[in-house]
């Protein structure tokens, strides 16, 4: 068996093991380990196992994951976010699907301070899922909206994937962030539109709430000034240059903890529960990061990505066809790999190829434009079956949810994603316009 065949075989094995309920992280570890030892030798694998957990777990930029999870726990447990949702409900709950829309808006707001999709999906999922259940939303719509909303954590800057992309391709990180802004908010808008259409077709999936008066609306808004204050402090701190997006997670945790202890009347036992729940979710995410790393090292060793490049280069296709092919490969890979692994594997190969093709876009803009497109498609992988990390996270919050229903609920948001990608390919100005305006 050649290395390429081995890579395909292991991908198939990965799918089989996953489908018989072996935890995702374990399947990636096992398949990656078998493949790695067959190509790189068993002693090399043993050495890798001795150091990989520490090098993966001590990644500075990943420190935001447990911190934002803890922030979400604190806010949820102390009732702060429930208040936020009550407020949203008084304003738009009367609308069909209103709370799902509010959840998207919440994800977008949270995404503007957090660089991770998984953290966004977990935090907002914990907050919004029980609320939607209480208001008799269908499981499909609730899970779909939250899983898709979670991707806004990456689509709206700051964004971990964008940082990695910029470093790999020597692009300016600030410019990448600026370029991601309009597409990110388009994503939020597109998701809200998707909900509006969905509830028009299936009116029972997102029932109307009670009618509220103006005085109720204003009164409820007074209840959330403090959480708005935290949000503005964090956001303002980042954009005024007082701290980095990674440090913002720490600021958010401390402020939320203080608020939870003073206003939310949280006690020590509540804090302990928050820490325990953070522990479980964080360990789950980092264990997957560890598994994904081993699997992507194996894929790199198999030289499968190189073969892909050769196939594309020898095909004689137009730049746009090749671009679409590349983006499609992300969709396929998104079935197996996590977003960071995909970027690390493919960008070193795809990027130089893109830079020599003619799209009628100046060289300086081409890299930014491609980066934003890749970012979106990579994030789509988080909500596509069979392995959609965000969907799994949302599902893990409610045992009554069926995975099949969750993936069904994701479909309207996928359609919105595809429309947005098409728009960005046809009108590069959507991402590049703001960059030109500011610089």
């Amino acid at each position, binding site marked *: 068996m050649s290395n390429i065949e081995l890579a395909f075989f292991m991908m198939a094995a990965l799918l089989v093991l996953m489908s018989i309920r072996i935890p995702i992280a374990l399947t990636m570890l096992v398949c990656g380990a078998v493949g790695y030892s067959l190509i790189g030798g068993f002693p090399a694998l043993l050495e*890798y196992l001795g150091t990989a957990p520490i090098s993966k777990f001590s990644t500075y930029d990943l420190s935001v994951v447990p911190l934002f999870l803890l922030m979400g726990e604190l806010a949820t447990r102390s009732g702060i976010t429930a208040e936020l949702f009550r407020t949203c409900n008084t304003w738009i709950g009367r609308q069909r699907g209103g709370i799902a829309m509010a959840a998207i808006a919440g994800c977008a707001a949270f995404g503007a301070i957090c660089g991770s999709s998984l953290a966004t999906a977990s935090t907002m999922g914990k907050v919004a899922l029980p609320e939607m259940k209480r208001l008799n939303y269908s499981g499909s719509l609730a899970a779909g909206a939250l899983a898709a909303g979670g991707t806004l954590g990456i689509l709206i800057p700051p964004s971990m994937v964008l940082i990695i992309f910029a470093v790999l391709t*020597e692009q*300016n990180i600030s410019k990448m962030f600026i370029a991601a802004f309009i597409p990110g908010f388009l994503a939020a808008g597109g998701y809200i539109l998707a909900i509006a259409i969905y509830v028009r077709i299936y009116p029972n999936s997102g029932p109307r709430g009670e009618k509220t008066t103006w005085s109720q609306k204003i009164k409820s808004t007074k209840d959330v000034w403090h959480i708005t204050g935290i949000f503005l402090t964090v956001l303002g701190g980042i954009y005024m*240059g*007082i701290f980095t997006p990674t440090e913002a997670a720490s600021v958010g945790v401390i402020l939320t903890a203080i608020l939870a202890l003073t206003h939310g009347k949280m006690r020590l036992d509540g804090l302990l529960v928050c820490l325990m729940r953070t522990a479980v979710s964080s360990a789950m995410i980092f264990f997957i990061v560890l598994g994904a*790393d081993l699997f992507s090292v194996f894929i790199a060793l198999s*030289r499968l990505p190189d073969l892909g490049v050769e196939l594309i280069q020898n095909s004689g296709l137009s730049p746009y066809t090749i671009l679409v092919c590349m983006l499609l490969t992300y969709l396929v890979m998104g079935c197996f790999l996590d977003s960071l692994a995909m970027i690390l594997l493919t960008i070193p190969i795809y990027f130089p190829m893109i830079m020599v093709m003619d799209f009628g876009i100046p060289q300086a803009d081409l890299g930014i434009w491609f980066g934003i497109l890749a970012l979106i498609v990579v994030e789509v992988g988080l909500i596509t079956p069979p392995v959609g990390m965000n969907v799994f996270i949302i599902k893990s919050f409610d045992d009554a949810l069926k995975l099949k229903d969750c993936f069904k609920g994701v479909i309207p948001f996928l359609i919105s994603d595809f429309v947005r990608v098409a728009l960005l390919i046809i009108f590069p100005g959507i991402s590049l316009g703001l960059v030109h305006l500011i610089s």
Partner: protein
Amino acid sequence: ADPEYTFKLHHMLPPASNAHANFLQPWAEQVEKDSNGRIHIELYPSMQLGGSPPQLFDQVRKGIVDLTWTVGGYTPGRFPKATVFELPFVPVNARVTSMALQEYAETEMQDELKDVHLLAMHTHFPGSLHSREKDIKTLEDLKGLKVRAPNKMLADALNIIGANTVFMPVPTMPSALSKGVIDVTALPFEVVKPLKIQELATHQTEFKGDRGFYTQFFIFAMNKDSYAKLPDDLKKVIDQNSGVPLAGFIGDAFDAYEVGAVKKRLIVAILSIPSKALNTNIGKQHWRLLRHNG
């Protein structure tokens, strides 16, 4: 025909980097050519084979990969002898310093490098200071500023003159500069360009005189067993492409890159008395360290 020996070369920088494009790739091609295709070298940039940059040296030592190119300063305390070359105001240009370092490594550093087959040690072109707001004209101007140091040696040196030193991973640096988490960073222009540091830190300072401000040392090494299993004629091919000439070749690649660098608002500062004091102070500390380590 298929190659008889295939080696994996693992490093941390992207394919577009100076290191990858201007000497690792050419080196690999040269070895393949000189061996008539009997040796094939697969390049794995951007840490594709896993681990973190400080682990690269161990990866080649243990044979997880066959070849690596890595920064010596990422594993502080591991190569105390080479840190002489990290002393401030020691380096000349990359070619001269690299060849000197390689010679020093061959004669003085066998114990520290005994676990690998050394191809070449080298340095980058002397680094300069890149400041967000303040012109750095003398070293006193650094007092109280938050400075990102590239290694322990320079961190100690900057601490002595009253700077507030920070160490952070290279990818975190641009955002840290833009937020003012750091005011100044010490970097060679080779790193400035890919990270677009000149757009964030527009005040650049180089130092007058025949010695540069500081440099980092790099290790380009092969796994011992990978080398040992080669037949003599192929060992010779590797030998031809290593040692002092290779150090010189790599140095040239760094010097050439420096010439083409973007220098936006360059100040050439004059060495002042405290900087000399700093040199001796650190120097003393350094020799103590050397004695301590044997």
